[in-house]
């Protein structure tokens, strides 16, 4: 089997996913094509045909089977991989919950797409946010390089004995899945060395030598059910610190790191903060720079880890700020604001002084979150900081 050498290539997001997956040497891959994650599969089958990828590729008839196959393989101790998006994710929902409840370290990138209806093949974050309470770890990434790097980190996180949880690497479909960027591909030796600590880690596996029942049904009202949920939450809690550690270790090994749970940009002396996720952050950096040139002390926080929620890190980062604004690319039905807004709203009471929070909804259905939109948003956050009345949620494309 030829070994992957370190090289720099121009890759689209889905190719970065495929390279990242291949470098982690999964034993079993089962996935079903769905826009905009389809080319992940095409790349992986092509790698397999070229003899670069030594994995069992299972052709399944749908996403529900894809994640089921992966779940079984993972229970038997295999390193597994699958990818999906939107309706595919919806079709695997029952298994999605079973995988996390079974504490299986599956890694599944999500090429985020709107969850129809209204029917569309366009970017949006409603699929990933709909399943945010499914018990998975969710990491939202900004660039093609970050996809590849986060995938390698995801296996280190998922398979750690202290964690044992499945991980979603959420990247925006279309914008990132089909965007070509310069990506540094690490060598197989480097990735092998980074993942080597996992070889010493044990986990429960299905095997013939030691018979086990999995999943073992729990009798109604048996408190062991609550015990498993308690352990699940405790593991999610540990994942926060662990991601920071893994991010640092990745930086030391590869020279690139992303701040772990959250990434801060020009926040140190900032008075107002713009909070973003996924690839919206790229445009937001440009807007922060231009507003800084105008003399406005604005900073940017990119939330990478959304589940578990980086509460402690955000409290620290938002200390002493005068106003916070948040961009969401989806809406929470019944709240008229985004999920990230709700989470930050819950966090406000943890801050020392009351701070105004302004929400923005934009970029739905594949629409651009433009520089002009973000400039308007920053101006509104600034107005809120100055005590002027500002609407709680603004739909930037409509209002």
């Amino acid at each position, binding site marked *: 089997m030829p070994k992957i050498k370190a090289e720099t290539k121009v890759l689209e997001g889905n190719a970065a996913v495929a390279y990242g997956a291949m470098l982690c040497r999964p034993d079993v891959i089962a996935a079903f094509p769905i826009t905009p994650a389809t080319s992940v599969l095409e790349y992986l089958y092509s790698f397999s045909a070229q003899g670069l990828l030594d994995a069992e590729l299972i052709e399944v008839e749908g996403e529900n089977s894809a994640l089921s196959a992966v779940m079984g393989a993972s229970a038997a101790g295999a390193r597994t991989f699958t990818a999906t998006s939107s309706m595919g994710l919806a079709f695997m929902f029952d298994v999605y919950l079973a995988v996390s*409840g*079974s*504490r299986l370290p599956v890694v599944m990138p999500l090429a985020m797409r709107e969850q129809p209806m209204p029917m569309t093949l366009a970017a949006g974050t409603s699929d990933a946010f709909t399943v945010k309470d499914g018990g998975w770890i969710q990491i939202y990434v900004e660039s093609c390089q970050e996809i590849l790097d986060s995938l390698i980190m995801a296996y280190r996180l998922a398979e750690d004995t202290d964690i*044992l949880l499945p991980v979603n690497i959420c990247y925006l479909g279309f914008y990132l899945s089909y965007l070509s960027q310069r990506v540094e591909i690490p060598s197989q030796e480097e990735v092998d060395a980074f993942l080597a600590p996992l070889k010493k880690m044990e986990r*429960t596996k299905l095997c013939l030598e*030691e*018979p*086990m*029942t*999995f*999943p*073992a*049904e*729990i*009798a109604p009202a*048996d*408190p*062991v059910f609550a*015990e*498993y949920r*308690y*352990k*699940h939450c405790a*593991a999610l809690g540990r994942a926060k610190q662990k991601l920071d550690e893994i991010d640092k270790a990745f930086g030391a090994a590869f020279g690139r790191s992303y701040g772990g749970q959250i990434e801060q940009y020009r926040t140190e002396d900032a008075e107002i903060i713009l909070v973003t996720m996924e690839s919206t952050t790229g445009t937001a950096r440009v807007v922060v720079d231009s507003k800084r040139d105008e003399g406005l002390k604005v900073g940017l926080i990119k939330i990478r880890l959304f589940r578990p929620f980086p509460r402690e890190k955000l409290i620290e980062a938002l200390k002493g700020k005068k106003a916070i604004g948040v961009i969401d690319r989806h809406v929470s039905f019944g709240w008229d604001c985004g999920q990230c807004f709700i989470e930050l709203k819950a966090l406000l009471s943890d801050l020392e002084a009351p701070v105004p929070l302004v929400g923005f909804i934009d970029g739905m259905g594949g629409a651009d979150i433009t520089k002009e939109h973000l400039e308007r948003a920053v101006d509104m956050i600034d107005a809120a900081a100055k005590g002027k009345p500002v609407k709680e949620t603004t739909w930037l494309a409509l209002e």
Partner: protein
Amino acid sequence: MIKFKSRFESSWADPKTMHILPTGEWRFQRPVIKAEKCCQCGWCYIFCPVGCIEDRGTYFEANLDYCKGCSICAKVCPVDAIRMVREEIR
């Protein structure tokens, strides 16, 4: 300090820690055996679809935690040692 019941992180069970569910709860009739009549041919043991017939040394008997009351054992018994009796409301 919380005292955990299971050594596993999720619903796994080995033979020692298995949480056993009695699956014969909804039975409406039960097999009653006349032990002295039993010829120990083992037909009931072989034909029982849930495998709940146990060997008691000189006769065979259904484990009522798992017996669903299908009456196959009574049908196949060559010496009519098994009789089905209606379950009463407890």
